[in-house]
């Protein structure tokens, strides 16, 4: 099907034979999490395209933290984010988790757990748990990281799958507070217009 519409172009080809899924014709995606202030939790901000996690970190820095305050960020491959069922109304995502197999305490590793506190908001880091699978991590979090309010989605990410800001890189955002000119609101167009009109009134 020939079309300039990307929604049409990206449709899978209809074929009678079973064949492997075509590889991506673009760079993969990485999820970006930003910490706006010290002692504030990391929050999901969006995605970047990159060839690997190191480049994703570099590109995420300017894509998501070139304005406003930021003290650190981390990135992870989208394929390393494990997602619970999405719920709505007052249904807690933890209550609709599939059953986990018995925890054998084998090959446990640290998982970061994120909650979606409101539909339409961003996922927020709430803590970490030790588990041997993402589903088991969510079950662990159900017992230890809930504050009573329903959450509408849970993400679990292996801690060793993230590229975190290093100690030496904390300086990267040092001059950000001085770059208010990057925020459109810093350009006081209304004030300038008022001054101009008053000046030309007489």
């Amino acid at each position, binding site marked *: 099907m020939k079309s300039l519409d990307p929604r049409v172009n990206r449709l899978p080809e209809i074929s009678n034979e079973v064949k492997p899924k075509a590889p991506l014709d673009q*760079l993969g995606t990485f999820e970006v999490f930003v910490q706006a202030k010290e002692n504030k939790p990391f929050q999901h901000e969006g995605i970047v395209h990159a060839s690997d996690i190191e480049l994703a970190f570099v590109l995420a820095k300017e894509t998501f933290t070139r304005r406003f305050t930021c003290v650190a960020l981390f990135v992870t491959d989208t394929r390393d984010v494990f997602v619970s069922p999405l719920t709505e109304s007052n249904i807690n995502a933890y209550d609709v988790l599939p059953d986990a197999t018995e925890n054998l305490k084998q090959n446990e590793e640290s998982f970061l757990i994120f909650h979606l506190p409101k539909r339409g908001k961003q996922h927020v880091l709430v803590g970490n748990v030790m588990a041997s699978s993402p589903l088991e991590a969510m079950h662990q979090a159900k017992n230890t990281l809930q504050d009573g309010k329903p959450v509408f989605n849970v993400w679990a990410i292996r801690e060793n799958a993230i590229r975190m800001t290093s100690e030496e890189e904390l300086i990267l955002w040092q001059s950000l507070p001085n770059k208010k000119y990057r925020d459109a609101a810093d350009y006081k167009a209304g004030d300038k217009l008022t001054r101009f009109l008053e000046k030309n009134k007489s």
Partner: protein
Amino acid sequence: MENIALKELLYKIADDQLILGHRNSEWTGMGPLLEEDIAFSSMAQDKVGQSYAIYQMLHQLGEQEPDTVAFMRNATQFHNCQLVELPNGEYDFSLIRHLLFDTAEYIRFDYLSTSSYQPLADLAGKIKGELQYHTLHANTLIKKLGTATEESINRLQHSLQVALPYALGIFEPSPYENILIEHKIFKGEVALQQAWQEKIEFIISKTQLTLTDWKVLQPVYGGRVGRHTEHLQPLLDEMSEVFKIDPTAEW
């Protein structure tokens, strides 16, 4: 004499930043992918901001207002090295220039962080994070593309050959070198070039690119004394076009 030496140093740093900032901003909207477009544009903006800070220092030392200095001079009055004024060409050239220039700039400001001229030392501390990001960005891209495909390696290699003689022009000898060193304002271009070569050798060794023997390279000098390529004046004309319509306008 110390003041003249300091001004010469400040002018070449600021002019380098302004001209390369403008050149790099020409990629805005045309970068190879959206995220890279944003990153390269942000770094270009950083460079213009850094040049502004130094033009302010020059103003404190008796030179004209930053806008006047930036927009009203002709090419022969600029002290930037010729490397920064060369046209962008393809992205491979811009990336190689980014690596070569920003590596030098990082070391230069590292030296300046202990300068006896306190405003310069303060600025070096303030923008350290920006410079660290610029080198992180350059090193990451060059390491990736310098080991990726035959095409990316060949293209970077070609650009490296073209850019290296111009990059040596960053360190064009200054008539005030000894004064700057004596007064502990700056460690000097010779020391800077030595440290830069070692760093560049290290980064390139992580790729499949090769460096020409430093001894056979012929540095392209002249920029620091106002001798420029035919590319600078058109850049200045375009950069100052709006300002010159009404130099007194408040934006």
